[in-house]
């Protein structure tokens, strides 16, 4: 008797989370970007999703422009094999308040499709307790493939009332006319989409263009 009650409660909870997931997807995709009206006083816990190569350079260039008092602590999530990006993050932050979280790489270059499904699933699950512990107020990403699983996890946690994270996606500088695959997936999850070329804005009603960032 006891067991089946627990089971039923579990199923009920999961279905509520599912329902809220779709409700939130509906909310972010249909409403044109809503900016909070209440003034924020507490600093925002920030998670910055670091990809590789050009994405990292670009992201750090943008993070550099943020007010460090307002966006603190800053957690950088990157693949544990990516020592180049690690070096770049460390040289930007030096002694400032930041944390670096390494997660297993979801896909290595040349890895087969089937095994990459398994490793992606693993790195996605691995990031669940990390994000649940940080409970970020802001998740910043700019479109390496690795940022999609993180955004999905943050979004599910949001649906489960674990955290209230604003997901902000900045499309990469090299995208002038078309969105990247990550971007097209994040249309459904990101609260705000920022593009760097005016042409792209016409491709997505929700996207914002504020001028030349880099």
């Amino acid at each position: 008797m006891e067991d089946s009650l627990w089971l039923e409660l579990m199923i009920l909870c999961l279905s509520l989370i599912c329902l809220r997931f779709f409700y939130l997807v509906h909310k972010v995709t249909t409403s044109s970007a809503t900016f909070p009206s209440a003034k924020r006083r507490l600093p925002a816990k920030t998670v910055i999703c670091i990809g590789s190569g050009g994405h990292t350079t670009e992201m750090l260039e943008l993070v550099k422009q943020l007010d460090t008092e307002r966006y603190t602590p800053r957690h950088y999530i990157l693949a544990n094999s990516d020592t180049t990006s690690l070096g770049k993050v460390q040289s930007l932050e030096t002694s400032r308040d930041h944390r670096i979280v390494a997660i297993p790489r979801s896909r290595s270059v040349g890895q087969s499709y089937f095994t990459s499904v398994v490793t992606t699933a693993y790195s996605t699950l691995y990031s669940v307790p990390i994000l649940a512990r940080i409970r970020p107020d802001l998740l910043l990403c700019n479109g390496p493939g690795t940022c999609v699983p993180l955004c999905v996890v943050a979004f599910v946690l949001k649906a489960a009332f674990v955290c209230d994270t604003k997901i902000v996606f900045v499309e990469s500088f090299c995208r002038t006319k078309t969105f990247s695959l990550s971007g097209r997936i994040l249309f459904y999850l990101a609260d705000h989409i920022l593009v760097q070329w005016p042409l792209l804005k016409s491709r997505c009603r929700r996207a914002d263009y504020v001028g030349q960032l880099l």
Partner: protein
Amino acid sequence: MNGKRLFVTVGTTKFDKLLKTVTNEEILGILHKLGYNQIQLQVGNGSYVEVKHESIELSYNTYFEDFDNEIEKSDLVISHAGAGSCLQVLKKKKPLIVVINDDLMDNHQLELAQELERQGYLYYGTCSTLNKLLLQDITKLAEYPTSNKTLFAKYINKCMGFS
């Protein structure tokens, strides 16, 4: 009269075809006529055969820690289409020629080069059109505007309710 300096960069990629094209007889001849007497090649992960030329001094390096300084010293930069390299050169306001690696199926790099050329910031082409590219008038290129460093912070502040 002092000669001009050319900087050729492939970033961290492997783009041997560009290195080979820049150092072939025809291109070196054009460069010599244009008044270049120094070429610095940054070869990344590629492999190359060192070329000697009677009136142009060529030097090869794998990577530069201080890229900006190399760009600063040069009169013209020939670069692969990587967004990072292009931006670095444009920010230094140096004339830039971008060579697309047509062996790579990375069309969003092409997309960027096209857009930047349309706005008059650079010339782009492939290895086989480099000879024509070099004859373009680089003084006609527009200066890449310096970005406003507060725009991004303002936007995120608005998203988070700080402003």
